[in-house]
């Protein structure tokens, strides 16, 4: 059965780590008691530990699924793990007693505002925060605590400060196979059938927090004030009116792209169960071609409105994840089939080319150069392709190809036809390159969000199927 999902791509080369997405999200959705510590959107520095502290360490947090003899099981059940993260794992939320700046009696010293625990109101020492490892401050401590660090060679580890860093913005992945949904014994979590947004029904939630443990991305947050759990809602009230999410719209670097993808719902179980190195390839195979007449027919039969199908045809997510294979899911090995994708960073490509002694490298030199980029492929593969380095190379080669194509035209003065050889080698056309240029470089038309239609779409059938264990 064909389903539609509103999905996101983040292009990491463009993220400047300004946290505007986090701040705007916070002000719109979580600027209230009980959610002080919660950042539905956060930006991490990589390498680094992230937020909550070392969230990728599933031996500690117990999130996601494990494939066990052909059956998917919640890791928390396999581990018999019941405890959700502590406040300290996120951070103790703090503010400053700014009032003191105005109320202080006249004295010799300047008045100063001190950090105050937002929950108890008591003075506190700030020792950890949600972006503590920002810009690799203290990076030689925090970068080494990055769970992905273990895949790297020792020599890279030793000189890492000279090597690389980039930012990783994170929201709820609105997964196709959400562990949080299956972990809830109250059935309080549901995936909207019209756009795939994963939501927690606040009337049903009783604050058991099994979803908090089950989510491998730690993107469900318990509200200690209401006694219920909350999470990113992909700004669904905005989506319904055809607007992109707050984090997307406010993004300074124009990093974020949003659009509809059509996918084959019946294959979710199968795809979530393939070996680690096949996960990206199989997840891609779930996404359907929105121009294929049969897909369109089946989408209509499934009740997907025409404006969704049209949006799917203009969807940057479809092109970047499926058609161009530029974007990759974050930690596909958690097997939740996350639907927020990342274009891995070249970061910065020039230096890498310089090492060859020639900035104007021949295209045929680019291939070996990929492996000498600042960011080790193995590190990126640990984040975005369950260790499959080929998937990362494929993406980076295309990113280089488009740069090379435009450089050949702009700098070398070649014609489009002459320059397009570098594209053809990567399976790209001139049209692809121009669309990429419009989206990635100019940052135009970064989202196409269809307005909500009053159309009855059937219940997600795979959600009813047996064969997966909590």
């Amino acid at each position, binding site marked *: 059965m064909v389903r539609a999902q509103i999905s996101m791509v983040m292009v990491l080369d463009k993220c400047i780590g300004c946290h505007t997405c986090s701040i705007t999200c916070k002000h719109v959705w979580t600027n209230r008691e009980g959610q002080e*510590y919660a950042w539905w959107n956060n930006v991490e520095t990589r390498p680094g530990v992230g937020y909550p502290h070392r969230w990728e360490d599933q031996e500690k947090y117990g999130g996601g699924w494990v494939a066990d003899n052909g059956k998917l099981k919640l890791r928390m*059940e396999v581990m*018999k793990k*019941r*405890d*959700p*993260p*502590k*406040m300290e794992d*996120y951070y103790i939320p703090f503010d400053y007693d700014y009032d003191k700046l105005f109320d202080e009696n006249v004295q010799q010293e300047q008045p100063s505002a001190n950090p105050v625990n937002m*929950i*108890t109101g008591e003075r506190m020492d700030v020792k950890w925060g949600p972006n503590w490892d920002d810009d690799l401050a203290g990076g030689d401590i925090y970068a080494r605590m990055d769970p992905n660090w273990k895949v790297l060679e020792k020599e890279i580890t030793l000189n890492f400060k000279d090597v690389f860093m980039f930012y990783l913005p994170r929201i709820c992945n609105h997964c196709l196979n959400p562990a949080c*949904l*299956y972990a809830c*014994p*109250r*059935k309080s979590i*549901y*995936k*909207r*059938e019209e756009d795939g947004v994963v939501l927690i*029904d606040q009337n*049903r939630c*009783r604050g*058991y*927090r*099994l979803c*908090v443990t089950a989510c491998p991305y730690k993107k469900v947050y*318990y509200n*200690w004030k209401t006694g219920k759990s909350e999470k990113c809602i992909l700004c669904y009230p905005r989506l319904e009116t055809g607007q992109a999410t707050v984090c997307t719209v406010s993004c300074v670097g124009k990093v974020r792209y949003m659009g509809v993808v059509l996918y084959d719902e019946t294959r979710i179980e199968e795809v979530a169960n393939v070996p680690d190195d096949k996960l990206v390839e199989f997840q891609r195979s779930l996404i359907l071609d929105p121009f294929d007449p049969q897909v369109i027919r089946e989408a209509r039969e499934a009740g997907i409105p025409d404006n969704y199908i049209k949006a799917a045809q203009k969807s940057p997510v479809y092109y970047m994840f499926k058609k161009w294979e530029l974007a990759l899911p974050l930690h596909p090995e958690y097997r939740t089939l996350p639907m927020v994708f990342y274009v891995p960073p070249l970061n910065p490509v020039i230096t890498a080319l310089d090492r060859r002694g020639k900035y104007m490298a021949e295209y045929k030199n680019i291939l070996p150069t990929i492996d000498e980029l600042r960011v080790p492929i193995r590190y990126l593969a640990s984040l975005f392709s369950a260790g499959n380095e080929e998937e990362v190379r494929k993406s980076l080669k295309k990113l280089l190809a488009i740069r090379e194509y435009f450089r050949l035209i702009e700098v070398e003065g070649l014609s489009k036809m002459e320059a397009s050889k570098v594209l053809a080698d990567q399976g790209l056309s001139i049209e692809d390159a121009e669309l990429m240029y419009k989206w990635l470089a100019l940052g135009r038309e970064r989202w196409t969000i269809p307005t909500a239609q009053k159309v009855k779409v059937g*219940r*997600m059938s795979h*959600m*009813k*199927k*047996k064969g997966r264990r*909590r």
Partner: protein
Amino acid sequence: MDKRYRMAALIGVLLIFAASTLAVMGIVPVTAQTNAYTAKYVQGPIPLDPTAGLWQQAEKGNAVLVAQLLTYPQRLDTQPRQVSYAAVSNGTHFAIYLEWSDETEDVPQLGALDQFPDAAAVQFPVMAGEQPYVCMGMPDNPVNIVMWSADGKVENLVAGSGYGTKGQQEQQARGLHKTPTSPIVKLPPEEQIWTASASYSDGKWRVILVRPTGGVGSFTPSLDPGSEVSIAFALWDGSKYERAGSKVTSGWMTLKLEAPAGAAAVETVTVTETQAAGTVTQTVTQTATVTETIAAATGSVKAAIVGFLAALVIAIIMLALLYRKGALKGV
């Protein structure tokens, strides 16, 4: 005999043995612990202080609670627990006293994300004279549950899509948007008739749950003096991260609500919620009878027999299922 069948038979016998052992322990959910407890009829206000003489001197019923292992999320600790209980009514109110051991007093701190309160629940059938499926009822035969938790909450709840109806639950659970009947639903504010007072000392929780007698809504039994009702208990230990189905539960027991003695007029003394705990203590007429004890004893024998039969049936069904699925092939 074929080796395969011999093994199958052996497994069958083992299953039956295991099931009957569980039945005797009271684990099989369809069985009832039929030991009856009589809630005395008292004159005047009911003391709300758990340490009051009335509660401490009252004859206690005892229930063994075993780990919920039927459905997700199961209890990780399989040790059984025990609760002592006493109940009285006075014509206007019904009160039940619960006492159980718990090594830690778990009351979540302000801002805590990983702390769970200790909790206790008392379950009644919604429909008089019924004894619904003990694991939170069935859609056509629901249960009324009062749940107290150490964070101060007392909730009057109704449950009726039972853990036992897993197939149906699975089917509905995974559905989206159109939310199915919940396993448990909080009743509207006007039906939140229970109040509680609790104390923790010497490693024990002592909790009193009080409500007015008489009908309110269609999901809360009236618990009128002179009536008889089934009752079951559940406990959660917060320090073990117990919540939801991660709990211990009892089977059904019988609670008899004593009628006022003779033709004596029913006193209309009300327990007010603002009353200071433990200020008023009433004398309880202790009239424990031998017959009750006998009834309780025969009741547990009956329970064991019923349990054994049920276990037998379950074992046979399991065996049949296993055989059909081919799980026994090649053993």
